[in-house]
């Protein structure tokens, strides 16, 4: 039998020699151009990083191609980033430009550094998950095609981190992204009480509902949903497969803005609702792409340098955000979950628009 609990390979065996020598002793870095970093060690040695885009969903042959490139230029060393980009790691300056040239030939976008839009953190969607309200890879591809230039340049006021999750489970830092694209259901789960007794545990199904919309009948081992209280989160479906929630006519995408993770300048913050619903229009989700582009453009032309999306919005006020982006404000934007009152405007301080 195979050994268990051996853990992952020791990362130290994966580090290029220049890193091994300068480990923990880096002095400073420079972004030589979009996608190209130079890190200088206290020793004076330099490490070059060339960052290339990845669709994340990679075939083994694609990975092998990446390996070919890394072997040709990087002595076989590379890494992936926390946003799923590929980083080619070199210590030989002379190989940097040839590497970039080859990446260009092979159509690998190079960029994602500095004040750019880096890769979109995303999830499974229709490719593999059972609860999605939209696809993941598709909208990401459609959007990145359109905002490609922001990946290969560094012209925005600050980093713009976009993430996509295909359901409210939010497998990704979607809740703290400059722009978050979130799949949502909009209709109540369809309870199949012929199956509930066999596949669901009543108490855990009842307690899975954040708004207490589910009533359990312990005797008959069935459940009923109070439609008025259900906000279509799908959590009941996670624990009770007999409550499917997908609805092709009403599922779609919502857009959230202004979150961040870093502690730079302002504290980390959650993304807030910008657009409650956009339809699923595969394969290119034009409504979603347009909406996100609009937000980016308005941000790009109004924010001050180094101001993240959320910092800009907080400075000018959400009322200004809605007037500038021309996104309609609705009663759905107003929180009505448990800490809603914290978001109410408890002051006369506001702008007219």
């Amino acid at each position, binding site marked *: 039998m*195979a050994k*268990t609990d*051996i*853990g*992952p*390979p020791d*990362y130290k*065996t*994966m580090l290029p020699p220049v890193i091994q020598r300068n*480990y*923990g002793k*880096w002095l*400073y*870095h*420079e972004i030589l151009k979009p996608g190209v970093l130079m*890190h200088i060690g206290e020793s004076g040695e330099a490490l070059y990083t060339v960052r290339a885009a990845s*669709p*994340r*969903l*990679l*075939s083994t*042959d694609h*990975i092998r191609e990446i*390996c070919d490139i890394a072997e040709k230029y990087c002595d076989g060393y590379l*890494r*992936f980033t*926390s946003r799923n980009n590929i980083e080619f790691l070199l210590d030989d300056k002379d190989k940097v430009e040839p590497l970039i040239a080859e990446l260009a030939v092979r*159509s690998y*976008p190079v960029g994602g550094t500095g004040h750019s839009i880096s890769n979109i953190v995303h999830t499974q969607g*229709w*490719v593999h998950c*059972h609860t999605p309200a939209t*696809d993941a890879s598709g909208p990401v*591809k*459609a959007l990145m095609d359109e905002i*490609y230039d922001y990946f290969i340049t560094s012209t925005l006021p600050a980093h713009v981190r976009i993430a996509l999750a295909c359901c409210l*489970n*939010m*497998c*990704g*830092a979607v809740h*703290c992204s400059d722009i978050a694209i979130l799949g949502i259901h909009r209709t109540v789960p369809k309870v199949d009480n012929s199956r509930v007794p066999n596949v669901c545990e009543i108490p855990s199904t009842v307690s*899975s509902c*954040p708004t207490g919309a589910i009533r359990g009948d312990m005797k008959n081992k069935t459940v009923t949903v109070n439609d008025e209280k259900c906000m279509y*989160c799908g959590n009941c479906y996670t624990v009770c*497969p007999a409550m499917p929630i*997908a609805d092709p006519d009403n*599922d779609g995408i919502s857009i959230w803005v202004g979150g961040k*993770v*870093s502690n*730079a*300048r*302002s504290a*980390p913050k*959650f993304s807030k609702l910008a657009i409650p619903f956009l339809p699923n229009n595969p*394969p*290119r989700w034009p409504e979603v792409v347009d909406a996100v582009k609009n937000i980016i453009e308005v941000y790009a032309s109004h924010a001050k*340098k*180094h101001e993240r999306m959320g910092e800009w919005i907080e400075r000018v006020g959400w009322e200004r955000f809605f007037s500038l982006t021309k996104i309609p404000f609705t009663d759905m934007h107003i929180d009505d979950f*448990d800490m809603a009152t914290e978001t109410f405007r408890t002051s006369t301080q506001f702008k007219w628009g």
Partner: protein
Amino acid sequence: MEKSKTPLLDQLEGGKWPSFVKDMKQAAEKSPMAKDLISQLELSYKEKIGHWKHGGIVGVKGYGGGVIGRYSDRPDLFPAVQHFHTMRVNHPTGWFYTTKALRKLCDIWDKHGSGLTNMHGSTGDAILLGMKTDQLQPCFDDLSDSGFDLGGSGSALRTPSACVGPGRCEWACIDSLDICYNLTMNYQGKMHRPMFPYKFKIKVSACPNDCVASIARSDFSIIGTWKGVIRIDQKEIDAYAASDLDIQKEVCDLCPTKCMEWDGKTLKIHDGDCNRCMHCINLMPKALRPGKEKGATILVGGKAPILEGALLSSVIVPFMKLEPPYTELKDLIDRIQDWWDEHGKSRERLGELIKRLGMRVFLRAVGLPAVPQMVKAPRSNPYVFFWPEDIKKPDEIAKEVK
């Protein structure tokens, strides 16, 4: 020309951004599973609905997790993806790879599965996307033989991850890679045999820039920080002053604590007021460096919205020195997990449990002192609980009276 069977997906093959459809088609050349996957996905695109059934429990011997079971709801149309499980392979810390290791992974995967992967999943695993049930064990065996192991899934410790930190970054205040790897190795049991109320995630960022989104996406967040003065290299300041950078406007004015003074020549930082946000250092990496006394801030409770709404991790230890073997850290993790394990309801994340029972109760249980760094502000509601020992008992009072 033959009419394409995937007219919708085909529209995602063009464009400048790398196309996942291309990768799928590439894999489909070798793998019937990948081929049926494309077809099923095309159907989803047409019908605007997923075609996977609710996951079932599958796995490998000795493990309670690491595999996500998945079955098609149209096996009649797409028999090759009737089973289409994924395996979560624990990535080498920092996502560093030699091509040798990567190629090995590819070979194993071509042998047992669809040839499709995610590099990487949101928790950090190398995801092997789509295999049949009977291939699970052989695939795992091959992985294990090649030095790979599975990551976490289910109500277990999940694959910890770390920012690149000391591997490449001058700002690393802690050895994020070593800490992450050490914890991963230390907690193999907790990762592979789900025994917790729910999932538990650990992420390590070596400075407050938090490049692994630790504060947003982990139950236990370890974020590097420092004490003492930001080190200033005046020569390099001069260079920045001579550059495009407007030190007053771009650096000082954006300092959240307004603790920097710039007179056009000398930069002064009132370090006592600095909250170590990194902004000035980020903008002038050659001139400014974090202080010398390094350690980490420990925060807990981060998570996505389900069930009680999303939470960011919050401070429970303002400063902890972190040196191997990280005994203090591990003790704290153990105490916290034990408390959570004992009191947590099924599917209740640590942050939710703290919310339910109160930070006060949590701190006492895990033996941490209350400090103002734990809160943005003290409570505004007057619903204060007093500990029994603070209250005068009738018998004591009787004594006093005597």
